[in-house]
């Protein structure tokens, strides 16, 4: 009996079992729902036919229908702005903070830890709090800006269609900075000190050290953080739901929220699936980048 267990454990069957378990998990909890979404996106479907798979096949008609909606273009642009600005600002501010906390000053690591407080907050709560801060008539932000003499009158952060998307981005950047900072700190810590020492001895200035030592050696980390950040931003649904609900007049609507609206507000589940499938394609692209960059990291 024990010999059988030992043979099982040492033999190739154990490896196969491990692979099979992981694959089974992925299949049930990731591949199946994803495939089901793809299937729903090419069927005629409403919430009363959810229970059966045998629904009329309509090919790409749902895609044509969704992409022809007047709001589709707006949502696509908003999503692009939301993702690009959020990710770039999170990365830049996160990197600055990571370098800042790498300086040796009293309490540096404790303070860095405290920065994580923002990250552990649920996005729904963050959204609700920013909604108060950014309220047009009686918000704290307007009051502060007004007291400092920076603005006259009020900025309607949530209800002004020219501003709402940027309010969303501000809140999302705030939420994402700690995560970026932490991962980048790890990357910074992995750079051997003697490289900097050698660079200094060669007469490299601080800026040169950053450009020609830090950045190249962080390439893999930056790639990983960037792709994870893009994925997190694209799935940032709760914050939108709590802060602007995509409004006013879709001015801050982004794909992930629109997909939910289609599926669960107007029961256009096929339409919601179409948006989800398009997003999956984008995320897969980003995931490929991520896998590639982690591979580079291992080689480095």
């Amino acid at each position, binding site marked *: 009996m024990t010999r059988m267990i030992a043979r099982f454990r040492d033999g190739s069957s154990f490896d196969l079992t491990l692979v099979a378990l992981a694959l089974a998990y992925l299949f049930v909890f990731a591949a199946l729902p994803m495939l089901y979404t793809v299937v729903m996106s090419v069927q005629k479907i409403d919430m*009363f*036919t959810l*229970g059966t798979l045998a629904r009329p096949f309509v090919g790409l008609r749902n895609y044509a229908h969704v992409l022809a909606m007047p709001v589709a273009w707006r949502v696509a642009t908003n999503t692009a702005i939301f993702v690009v600005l959020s990710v770039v600002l999170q990365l830049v501010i996160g990197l600055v903070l990571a370098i800042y906390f790498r300086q040796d000053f009293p309490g540096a690591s404790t303070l860095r830890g405290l920065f994580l407080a923002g990250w552990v907050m649920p996005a729904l709560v963050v959204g609700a709090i920013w909604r108060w801060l950014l309220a047009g008539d009686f918000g704290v932000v307007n009051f502060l800006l007004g007291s400092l003499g920076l603005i006259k009158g009020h900025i309607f952060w949530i209800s002004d269609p020219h501003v709402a998307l940027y309010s969303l981005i501000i809140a999302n950047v705030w939420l994402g900075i700690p995560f970026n900072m932490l991962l980048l700190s790890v990357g910074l810590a992995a750079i051997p000190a003697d490289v900097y020492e050698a660079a200094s001895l060669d007469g490299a200035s601080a800026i040169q050290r950053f450009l020609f030592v830090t950045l190249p050696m962080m390439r893999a980390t930056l790639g990983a953080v960037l792709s994870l950040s893009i994925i997190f931003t694209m799935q940032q649904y709760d914050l939108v739901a709590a802060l602007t609900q995509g409004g*006013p*007049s879709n001015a801050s609507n982004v794909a992930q929220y629109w997909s939910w609206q289609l599926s669960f507000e107007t*029961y256009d589940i096929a339409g919601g699936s179409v948006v989800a499938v398009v997003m999956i394609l984008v995320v897969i692209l980003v995931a490929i980048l991520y896998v590639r960059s982690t591979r580079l990291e291992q080689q480095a």
Partner: protein
Amino acid sequence: MSRLKCLSAGLVCAVALGLTGAPRADAAHITLNVWTIDLESQYMFPLAKQFEALHPDITVHVKHVQFQDINNDLARASITGDVPDISYIDNPYIDLFGSRGLLLDLAPMIAQSKMIDLSKFYPGPLAAVKYGDKIYGIPRGANTLALYYNADKFKAAGLDPNKPPRTWAELYADAKTLTDPAKHVYGLAFSAVASEEGTFQFLPWIQMAGGDYNRLNTPNDVEALQFWQKLIDEKLASPDTLVRSQYDSTATFNAGDAAMAISGPWELPRMAKDAKFDYRVALLPTMTAGSAHVSALGEGDNVILAKSQHPKEAFELLEFLNSKMPSVWNDWGFLPVEQVTVDHPNWPADYALFLQALQTARVRGPSPHWADISQAIQTAVQAALTHQATAAQALATAQQSVDATVNQ
């Protein structure tokens, strides 16, 4: 051998039980499953307990479902067949379920009923459940919209607090007089939020202008939306009107930051506590002097699902609930949906006013595609108020969407 003995003994035991009648009592005992949007202390929960006390052979199992989830949950339940016997459905969504045959037609049972008399029902609430000669539910109560105003602010601004605005022009003029940017006071608070609440608030204006959900783009309708535009553009109402719910908007009225507010009777308990001034209620202003007054019909209905195993007992519960109509105002803040005598109503003057408004309250729809229609209306309102489109363009687009939806 011993095993066989045990088995046969068990069999004998089971048969004996069957004969003594204990299981038969179980068979006669009925459990009604009820879904409602109420919290534990509200309406359905305590009333179901009272009903159980009167009917020892019936257990009522009440489940709370979030208002925004109930349509989805009911639809999913009807796929799996695991539906409740009774559920709450919001007025405009009765048709969604009724048109698919998922609701029991109550008309035959009502005809036999000694407790429910449809001729006593007000036209608005009745229209919410009546489809041809079919009745798909019993309205459990109603609410509607009216204009709250701060009489103290009227006096301070030199307006007569006994003469609230009666036309749109008067509303505009009064709002303008009452607006005081220096003190951060807006003339009017209402809600144009992109949700069913926004539709609920806007539709009466379209209806007063002569239109409806399926007739949105007449010149009069455009004027209604332009009127809302003017209120926001001239900052007589806060730009946050676009993102605030009715409850949040009225909070600014209670705090003295708006001189008038459009909302419903559900605000009265909170207002009695929060509003430290003389507040009063008036009917919604009409488009012109003497033109039709229309208000919105809110609250929902209790329906029996077509797949219910116990329609008779479920209907008894509906009859019981309906018999509580004289106390729904004082107990739960609903307006009664039929002519009943209400003894000592809370806030008698406001009650009388809201009851008057209810007489011309119209149901949203009906249409089995209400969700799409409502969204088209919200989109038009938001597009016009943010000037992404003119009022005429926005309503023309909405009309197209509604036509496409209704004809699909």
